């Protein structure tokens, strides 16, 4: 296994790990990359960033609905990972742990936003910008009407997710878009399985109610 290649060379009383290449890091599992980092391979942290940056960005964006803020929160997530990785229980999944951190930051953001009207204004402004952006033609074969409809349906579906209550939205995104299991969702959201199931069911019901007029 590649992780076994990380031998340590004894120099006097200190043991320094052999540098491992990016290609080798790419072939390791999350747990192995984490172990590499804990063994002193600074490069392993970059590998974790590469693996999770876009996934976390989409997850946080779906939760907070603001791209720039989502990016900041993902950055903060990685800083926290770096600081506390030595405390990570390696018997558990790294992805669950990092999603838990990102989820907590997203929840804090939503809580702060509800207290700060300025952020709400920024969100409104962003939505206004989105509404007024030029139409992008994704597929030249389709007629403009079809393209417009397709785009509109996508907007409605995205909006439906945003309209879900916060705790429903979180489990819905984790299940439907991130493909997490009930157990993982329970751990990430710090709730029990029953709560996850009921929230997910309600979230799906709400989602169906909102999007039904468009996709039916």
């Amino acid at each position, binding site marked *: 296994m590649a992780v076994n290649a990380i031998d340590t060379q004894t120099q006097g009383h200190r043991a320094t790990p052999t540098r491992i290449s990016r290609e080798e890091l790419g072939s390791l599992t999350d747990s192995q990359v984490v172990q590499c980092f804990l063994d002193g391979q600074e490069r392993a942290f970059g590998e974790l960033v590469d693996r999770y940056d876009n996934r976390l960005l989409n997850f946080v964006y779906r939760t907070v609905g603001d791209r720039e803020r*989502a990016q900041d929160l993902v950055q903060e997530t990685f800083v926290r990972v770096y600081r506390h990785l030595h405390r990570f229980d390696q018997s558990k999944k790294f992805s669950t742990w990092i999603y838990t951190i990102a989820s907590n930051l997203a929840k804090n953001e939503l809580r702060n936003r509800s207290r700060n009207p300025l952020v709400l204004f920024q969100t409104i402004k962003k939505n206004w910008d989105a509404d007024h952006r030029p139409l992008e033609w994704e597929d030249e074969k389709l007629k403009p009407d079809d393209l417009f409809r397709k785009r509109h349906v996508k907007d409605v579906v995205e909006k439906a997710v945003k309209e879900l209550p916060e705790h429903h939205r979180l489990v819905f995104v984790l299940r439907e878009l991130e493909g997490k299991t009930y157990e993982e969702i329970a751990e990430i959201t710090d709730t029990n399985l029953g709560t996850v199931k009921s929230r997910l069911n309600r979230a799906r019901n709400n989602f169906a109610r909102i999007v039904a007029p468009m996709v039916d």
Partner: protein
Amino acid sequence: MGVFRLVGGSGARVGSAPGDSGGQEPAAAITSMTVGTGVVPGRVGALIRTSPIVRFPTEVCRSMTCDDFLTRYSDLQDDAVPDRDRERLRAHLHGCESCRKYDAVVRRGVDILHDVPELRVRQDFRERVLHSVYTMEERERIRRFRPQAASGGGTMALVAAAVLVVVAVWTPNLWQQTPSVELPVLVVNGPGAAAEDLPYVLGSDPLATPMGRGGAAVPSLMVDADLWSGSNVLLYEHSPLYHRYRNPALVRAGLH
């Protein structure tokens, strides 16, 4: 394309909303229901995934209401139900058009959601993260080098040390009286040589002529005679200088 086929009866009543338990009551004549694999195109091409052809007993179809189905819908979707329950749920799904519609809407909605292009982080995201980490580490390092200054406890210790020093310095004075110093008596017979030539004025009269040592008048160039005459006198009486020299005293003039 749809190959849903009802056997032996007129089929379930359709057109009711999910949750309306009356909507899925099959006719009494139905003895079994056969459903097949296929797709039911929605308005935007929704696909309803169905199981392979299977024959459900009528009792199975009838033993579940739409409310029950909706309650357990998530479990079915996520394949988290026991086999027997799964059969019942599927049977209900195939027998109830409103629940089938509901299922199609959810699946189609999620499919569309998956089609939405994913966001990608900024190009310099990795550098930003590493920079944040570097900054954080630097801060930590500085804190480690200056543990007392950085922590509140260190500041308190400094303040306490300062207080102790002050107390140690001043404590002996609290118990000891101020030492008295006796200076030798100085006997003076007359003005010093340096003061002899200085002019002086007796009393508080500003118009008085300055006198030199030995009673001689000082030349007028030293004191302007018109300085306190006329309206200037009034000005003088309201000046701090007047009040200061109101009582008879020896006022030296012309010191310039």
